């Protein structure tokens, strides 16, 4: 669950390649551990019940839906705000937002989910809202940084040639900010998938259910399998994010 990591700048080919290798390798290792646990540990009936395939499948789907729905919500909110706040004349608002949200990162996601539960009741929607608040910062901050690091000379040339403000935003600023913005979205998705594991606390389902059952009933294999599964899930999406970062980079950069 990465959270407040600052936007990464291009670190060169090696970093990019490692980006695409390390996560899958880790996922593979985890899968091996999971398989080993399944094969070699004591799987009694209780454990079997916890690990029933249909259950696991459902939880998997739930986790994914939670991760994506909350990320979609965040993108729809944070990117427009990021754009709005980087327009001329609003530096103080921008700093205020970034500082406040930075502080919000220290709020425990756990606490947020439960508080939202007390307001909005049980269910998936509650969790989606809570996660959206939590992962707002990476996307917002990356949008802001991404837009601000666009070479001013390029923007000036664009305006000077007759692009309207809107055209400058869509033809120049956004395309050039895409790499950094996508990095932020990737972070948000990973956070959200990770935090979705807590959804079980408020009736939101997800793979945390398996882990919790394992904890409650003192069945280590269940704990491990649950943990491994949700970890692999997060790594898979991180990997997809890394692919997006690599292949959605504008040519010529």
């Amino acid at each position, binding site marked *: 669950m990465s959270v407040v990591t600052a936007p990464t700048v291009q670190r060169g080919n090696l970093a990019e390649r490692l980006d695409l290798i390390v996560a899958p390798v880790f996922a593979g290792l985890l899968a091996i551990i999971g398989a080993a646990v399944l094969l070699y540990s004591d799987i009694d009936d209780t454990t079997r019940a916890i690990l029933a395939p249909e259950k696991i499948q459902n939880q998997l789907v739930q986790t994914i839906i939670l991760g994506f729905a909350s990320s979609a919500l965040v993108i729809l909110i944070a990117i427009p705000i990021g754009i709005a706040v980087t327009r001329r004349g609003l530096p103080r608002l921008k700093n205020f937002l970034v500082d406040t949200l930075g502080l919000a990162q*220290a709020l425990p996601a756990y606490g947020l989910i439960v508080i939202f539960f007390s307001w909005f009741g049980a269910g998936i929607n509650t969790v989606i809202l809570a996660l959206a608040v939590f992962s707002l910062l990476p996307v917002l901050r990356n949008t802001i940084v991404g837009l601000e690091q666009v070479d001013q000379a390029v923007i000036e040339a664009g305006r000077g040639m007759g692009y309207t403000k809107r055209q400058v935003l869509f033809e120049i600023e956004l395309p050039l900010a895409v790499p950094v913005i996508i990095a932020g979205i990737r972070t948000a998705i990973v956070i959200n998938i990770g935090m979705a594991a807590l959804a079980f606390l408020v009736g939101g389902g997800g793979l945390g259910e398996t882990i919790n059952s394992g904890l409650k009933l003192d069945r280590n294999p269940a704990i491990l399998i649950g943990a491994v599964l949700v970890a692999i899930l997060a790594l898979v999406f991180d990997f997809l994010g890394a692919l997006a970062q690599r292949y959605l980079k504008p040519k010529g950069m």
Partner: protein
Amino acid sequence: MSTRLDQIQESTLEHSLYVVSVLGLASVFSIALGVLTRRSVLARELSLAITSVFLTLPALALFTIFIPLVGLGFAPSFIALFLYSLLPILRNTITGLDGIDSSVLDAAKGMGLTSRQVLLRIQLPLAWPVILAGIRVSSMLIVGVAAIATLVAGGGLGDFIKSGLARLPLPNSLEAIWTGTLLCLVLALIIDLILQATKRATISRGIR
């Protein structure tokens, strides 16, 4: 009420203990790692990639995956928090060391300082502000995540949230939840202040 205050004290102390001990160990480890790998691009990028993966892993998974090995309670919580806090500090150590003007290093070597002296007397002090910023990032991170320790019997401010949740909608349950949540924020602010003070105390005025 007195037991309540006792509870608050105890949980806050536990939580603080997590943060301080993890930050302490992680800082030493990450800075050392950053220093050791500063000459090899491969080693450096590999360390960054691996610690980055830790941060990608879901909190709950990281807290629970070590249980079969170390049981419940403080141990798995500490390990999880430790692994989480590595990346920000490591990355900032690397960036900090990288960002030093090479002419300064040149001059130092030219004056006859050994590599070690350059590292200890010039590079680390100059990189310190950036490293400290990384420690701050990590601290914000773990203050929030440490609340999950309660789920593996690790204590901390998460206890309030858990008990509050369990007792909903009974009276005082909401209060408990908010207490746990807001105290994390307060703790974060306090740590931030301490780090700012540290910054002022340890960074030479020449580079502030």
